[in-house]
């Protein structure tokens, strides 16, 4: 009302990767020698890296480097022809997106995949799908379990609504929201599932600088507050370097760098790959 808008930038200064709620633990996700081909085209070639519990892990690379394919492999959309994926030390086979979701891997999409016909609240409630157990009969008759479950789900969703500061659009159909808010709602839907690993596909694409700062703050806060492991993709080196613990750099489907932001920044291969790419 009185336009007491908060400045996001000031907060990012204090929550850094150095002081956080959950200390970085052992590997939660290990990718070994992953190769993915479409027809004769090699999308990914023998890529190995791991993701540690509670860390923020970025995958960067120029457009067409295979970043999205990598994410789609982790979440079971694509099955790599070679290589193994281990989740908490256990080898995964026959992954599908719903299975990944059941194991605690949630994601967002580069081109926002929200349920356009539903309100923000319904989108987030849909994110609670795996936390609903009541059967048709229980729901139809409003038996205690169905009611309790509905309340619990609503409470969890309301916590996220508050966390992401989207109270004012709770009832708004998502199609009517501006782009930046849609991205935030999509993050909210992923969070509603209470994931262990959050995959973010270019969470800051197409945003202005303020929206990017807001998104950075939310990603850091999610990691800090819920301890969620974050794997995020960006083609722009800028913002991501500030919030990531470690960075994997892909180029033409190959890994060309892996390490802390500083290490990656000084890696000659990375510098070469990014030269000539406008930023």
């Amino acid at each position, binding site marked *: 009302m*009185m336009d*007491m808008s908060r400045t996001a930038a000031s907060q990012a200064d*204090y929550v850094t990767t150095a002081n956080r709620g959950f200390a970085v633990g052992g590997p939660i996700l290990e990718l070994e020698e992953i190769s993915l081909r479409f027809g004769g085209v090699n999308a990914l070639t023998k890529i190995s890296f791991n993701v540690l519990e509670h860390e923020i892990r970025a995958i960067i690379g120029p457009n067409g480097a295979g970043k999205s394919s990598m994410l789609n492999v982790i979440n079971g959309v694509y099955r790599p022809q070679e290589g193994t994926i281990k989740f908490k030390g256990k080898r995964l086979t026959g992954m599908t997106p719903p299975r990944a979701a059941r194991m605690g891997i949630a994601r967002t999409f580069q081109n926002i995949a929200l349920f356009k016909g539903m309100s923000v609240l319904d989108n987030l409630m849909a994110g609670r799908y795996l936390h609903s157990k009541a059967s048709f009969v229980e729901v139809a008759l409003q038996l205690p379990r169905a009611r309790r479950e509905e309340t619990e789900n609503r409470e969890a969703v309301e*916590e996220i*609504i508050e966390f992401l500061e989207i*109270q*004012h659009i709770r009832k708004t159909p998502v199609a009517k929201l501006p782009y930046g808010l849609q991205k935030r709602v999509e993050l909210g839907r992923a969070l509603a599932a209470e994931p262990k690993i959050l995959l973010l596909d270019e969470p800051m694409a197409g945003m202005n600088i303020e929206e990017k700062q807001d998104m950075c703050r939310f990603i850091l806060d999610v990691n*800090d*507050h819920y301890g969620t492991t974050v794997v995020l993709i960006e083609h722009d080196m800028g913002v991501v370097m500030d919030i990531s613990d470690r960075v994997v750099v892909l180029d033409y489907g190959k890994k060309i760098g892996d390490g802390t932001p500083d290490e990656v920044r000084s890696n000659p291969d990375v510098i070469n790959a990014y030269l000539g790419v406008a930023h």
Partner: protein
Amino acid sequence: MSAALPAADTFPKLLLHHARQRGSSPATREKSRGIWRTLTWRELADDVAAVAAALSARGLHRGARMAFIGDNRPRLHVTMCAAHALGAVVVPLFQDATAEELLTPLRDAGVTHVFAEDQEQVDKILALLPRCPAIVSIVHDKDRGMRHYQRPQLVGYAALLGEGRAVTKGALDFLEAEAARGSGTDEASIIFTPGATGPSKGVVLTHAALIDRARAAAEMDGLTDADLALVYLPPAWIGQSLFGYAQPLLVGYCICCPESTETMYSDIREIGPTYFLAPPSVLDAMLKRVSSRMEGAGGLKRLIYRQCMSLARYAGPRLLSGERVIIGSGLAYGLGGLLIYGPLRDVLGLSRVRVAYSAGDAISPEVLTFFRAIGVNLKQLYGTAETGFFVAMQRDGAVRPDTVGPAARGVELRLATDREIQVRSTGLFKKYLGDPEATARAVTGDGWFRTGDAGRLTDDGQLLVLDRIKNIGTLADGTTFAPQAIENLLKSSPYIRQAVAFGTGRGWVCALIDIDTAAVGSWANKQAISYTGHADLASRAEVYRLVGEAIGKVNAGLARDVATAAMQIRRFAILPKELDSDDGELTRMRTLRRDAVAERYRGLVDAIYQGASAGPVGLPALQIRIEDAKPHSPATMRSAA
């Protein structure tokens, strides 16, 4: 009913009174995570007792100063009551002030304890700590992002409440004992003036003064514990201290806190307040919201809306003021009530409003008339921090757009020879913080406070506020020039957010215009004018034409009266950047800081007066156009009328 108001002389005593009298009635409501959560008077008193005990253990003592930085929330409310219970003085500060802006008040007031709403506010205080070594304790309400803050001064609200409960064990005896030690002459609050003219000063007010003013207004409007208010204004504003703190504690009505600034419009509809206070900027925003929605509606709906609104402008205020109207229009107004006015009140969440006030700045007649036309009993009041806010108030059934009503109960008004409004009442401030000379300058030997505002008293005792004395000047030909009146006329246009008129010592009047980005932006969209941002929009020739038309209308109005005909705006320029409180151009209450704007745009104003022709001017770092406005000759206007 008003006779039932408690006689207690301090806020903690009032709180205890209500905890006994209406322990299970709601005292505060807060929408949090989608649900309205209630604190009863008894629960409020319990929490206050616990927080007071914990703060006492952390060294808050009688006469100490505690700062409050945050939105109105029950937890801020509780802590403020607790500070008062301990005899401490509360210093509410604007939550959107920068750390540097907070430094002077914190240091001058000798603040030792701080209530900071969230991480953002805590960060500001932490940054100031080296320069404010007196601060020993910082209470924060929201834990978000603060898990790893290790400073020993910090304590979360929940932890504080826990510490206190371990001491009080749900009993009120600690609170009662502390309350018994206080009296009405104790200092209660230090309110910093918005600083529209000159630097901000700390105004020290006693419990007695605040309660006196709260009581006078509550009795005049017949407030009861059944009333309901939405508190959404900054606690640092004197109006909020009375309306959101002193009055509910005196009368026992419930205050409701919206979920967030953005949800205010839907929250107000859910709550349906009966008592409402808003600065003109908020009312203006509400009106613009409605009118832009109606202008975007379909043809028939828009036609009905326009018809009803023109009728309402005639009949509505008269009916509310108890005047007679032509029978036909009375009936039509009744029909309009069903079709338009009722739904409009409902959309705005004002259906149940019994008493509403506009305060803090001059309201444009257009806005006041709109709300009264749709049947909202909106009245004007006048007052400052030094005078305890309720100085002049319009009475039910006697509302005029030009005056702010007669003196409130317990207030004497007089005009000095230079037309300055002077006030004497039992609700005056005690002193300016740490500035005896300023205090002495502000109060006459016989106890009248000099407001610094120029005004006039009408024959029936109504106060008419012209402008700040220092703003009033004369044009080169000796015509009196009061910029605020002209600026208010300009702000009636939905496209003009702020206006600054110049003319003192000049031959004619010019104005700097700050366009309403949202309204002009949507107009531009409809006209298929593409633009990249505010600066681009503000420089478009089409927008200049739009604003020129609005100014032309204002000029036509001014030309109708010989006395104001010379006040017509001859030239104007649209500012490339919105006036902003972060840049010091507006106060934190979003009122104009004229001197700052004049200083910043000195070169532009000079160019307006010097420039021989209209057109783009190249000022350092700015590309602004200057346009001629269309003046009207008084003679032609009269013959046309």
